[in-house]
């Protein structure tokens, strides 16, 4: 029996794997010590648990455990990396290069630094959602201290060419920070092979708990330092003060260990389901795939259903299927997705998009149901859509003078 509702919004968050929860439980109750309590068994027990988790997290990305700074999540990691580098390397320069489809945690941090005197270059992406490497290299100047490009995009799942980006950065002596939130645990990410100097990621996108994440900070070739953004007891080698969230960190470690073991098999199974869903939905008339079809995460598909509005479309099934839309109506701002607009999509197509994010526990039965429900909802809404009727009558919508609000 199919259990409803179905969750297909794994880019927003993932459920905790039961094995993760099981690992965490003792650290709420009897093993509750403060990892910084150096003088008694409660503290030792907590510290040991954190050490093990630090190793598990480091191993997943091919790092040294000493290079892992635990944070409250990726927003904090993004802030710490970008602001921390900006302050630490102020004598070297004030220029940062990023791109216009980054997560708000990166874009808003950059905007904040602009007010403090930073110069930020926001690279445009190509229609497939990838940056142009020649454009990146051309943007580098003597004052450039950091390139901040996400590993994979949260809305369209596009995977950026990080190894190529970092080899350009190396050539010019510029540090590379990547927001690895969507990629780590889903596809192989190796900091040395990929040439990453700093990377933020978070547990809750990889079947771990919310409220815990990590910032990878390279210690060798080159040794990277960031200025702390939270002052206090000097935890995490002075880079991030605050009592460690021991149960969260233990869960994060376990989540990384599971990803390490199961990522490959998961990706294979999930991408099969994703492709099945995508192929079926792209057979519906006037539907379009957003983002690069090749260089992308295995579990994401972003599709525009032309002539219907995304939120209206979701309303046809959102009691039973949870997913996201790039439509303005799902946000308070009434602006459609800036990511889709950056791809050069017209606002009308951006308003018409749905993001499907599959996950570890997604089944084929759920996908079959989703195909049927989404197709029916799109057909039903098109019957109600004046734009669909005009399209069917051969009227070019661009020739109509719309009353713009």
């Amino acid at each position: 029996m199919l259990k409803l509702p179905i969750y297909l919004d794994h880019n927003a968050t993932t459920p905790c794997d039961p094995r993760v929860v099981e690992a965490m439980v003792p650290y709420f109750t009897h093993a509750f010590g403060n990892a910084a309590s150096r003088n008694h068994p409660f503290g030792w027990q907590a510290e040991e648990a954190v050490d093990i988790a630090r190793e598990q997290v480091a191993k997943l990305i091919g790092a040294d455990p000493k290079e892992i700074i635990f944070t409250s999540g990726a927003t904090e990691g993004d802030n710490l990396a970008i602001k921390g580098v900006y302050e630490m390397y102020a004598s070297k320069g004030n220029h940062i290069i990023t791109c216009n489809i980054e997560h708000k945690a990166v874009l808003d941090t950059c905007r904040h630094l602009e007010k403090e005197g930073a110069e930020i270059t926001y690279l445009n992406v190509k229609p497939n959602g990838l940056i142009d490497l020649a454009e990146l290299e051309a943007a580098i100047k003597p004052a450039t201290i950091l390139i901040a490009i996400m590993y994979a995009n949260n809305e369209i799942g596009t995977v950026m060419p990080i190894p190529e980006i970092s080899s350009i950065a190396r050539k010019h002596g510029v540090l590379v920070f990547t927001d690895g939130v969507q990629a780590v645990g889903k596809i192989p990410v190796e900091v040395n092979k990929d040439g990453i100097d700093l990377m933020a990621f978070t547990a809750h996108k990889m079947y771990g708990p919310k409220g815990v994440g990590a910032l990878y900070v390279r210690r060798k070739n080159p040794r990277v330092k960031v200025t702390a953004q939270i002052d206090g007891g000097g935890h995490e080698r002075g880079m991030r003060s605050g009592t460690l969230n021991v149960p969260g960190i233990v869960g994060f470690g376990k989540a990384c260990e599971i990803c390490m073991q199961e990522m490959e098999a998961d990706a294979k199974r999930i991408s099969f389901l994703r492709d099945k869903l995508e192929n079926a939905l792209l057979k519906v008339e006037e539907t379009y795939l957003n983002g690069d079809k090749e260089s992308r995460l295995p579990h994401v598909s972003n599709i525009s259903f032309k002539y219907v509005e995304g939120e209206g479309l979701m309303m046809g099934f959102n009691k039973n299927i949870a997913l996201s839309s790039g439509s303005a109506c799902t946000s308070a701002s009434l602006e459609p997705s800036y990511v889709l607009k950056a791809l050069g999509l017209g606002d009308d197509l951006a308003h018409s998009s749905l993001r499907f994010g599959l996950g570890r526990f997604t089944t084929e039965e759920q996908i079959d149901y989703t195909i049927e429900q989404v197709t029916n909802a799109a057909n039903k809404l098109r019957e109600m859509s004046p734009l669909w009727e005009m399209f069917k009558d051969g009227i070019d919508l661009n020739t109509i003078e719309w009353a713009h609000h």
Partner: protein
Amino acid sequence: MAYSEKVIDHYQHPKNVGMLDKSKNNVGTGLVGAPECGDVMRLQIEVDEATGVIRDAKFKTFGCGSAIASSSLATEWLKGKSVDEAVKIDNMTIVEELNLPPVKIHCSVLAEDAIKAAINDYRKKNGLEELQYEESAIH
């Protein structure tokens, strides 16, 4: 954000979806909004020429559930009203009836604009002066 039951009901069972014959003199058509804004409404009225009463009303809407519900409700309210009464339909009564949250008020404004545009189209076709409306808040 959860939708009100009335919005869901109109979305699931929209009233008066369709098209009236635009070429007829007693049919007024209003097309408002823009695809880029995520809302387009086409609302039509058919007026009984002898009585001046709206005999039929139809809509098609591209937009979110609240936009669909606002236009569906508007067509229901239009039927049986005289053109002069119909002009007085205010977007806030739609907001109240459908329990729209502040972020969806623009949907009701669009429905009011669509009614007025349809009435003006009807008036124009019949040699009447087009009514001047105050600019709505979101223009």
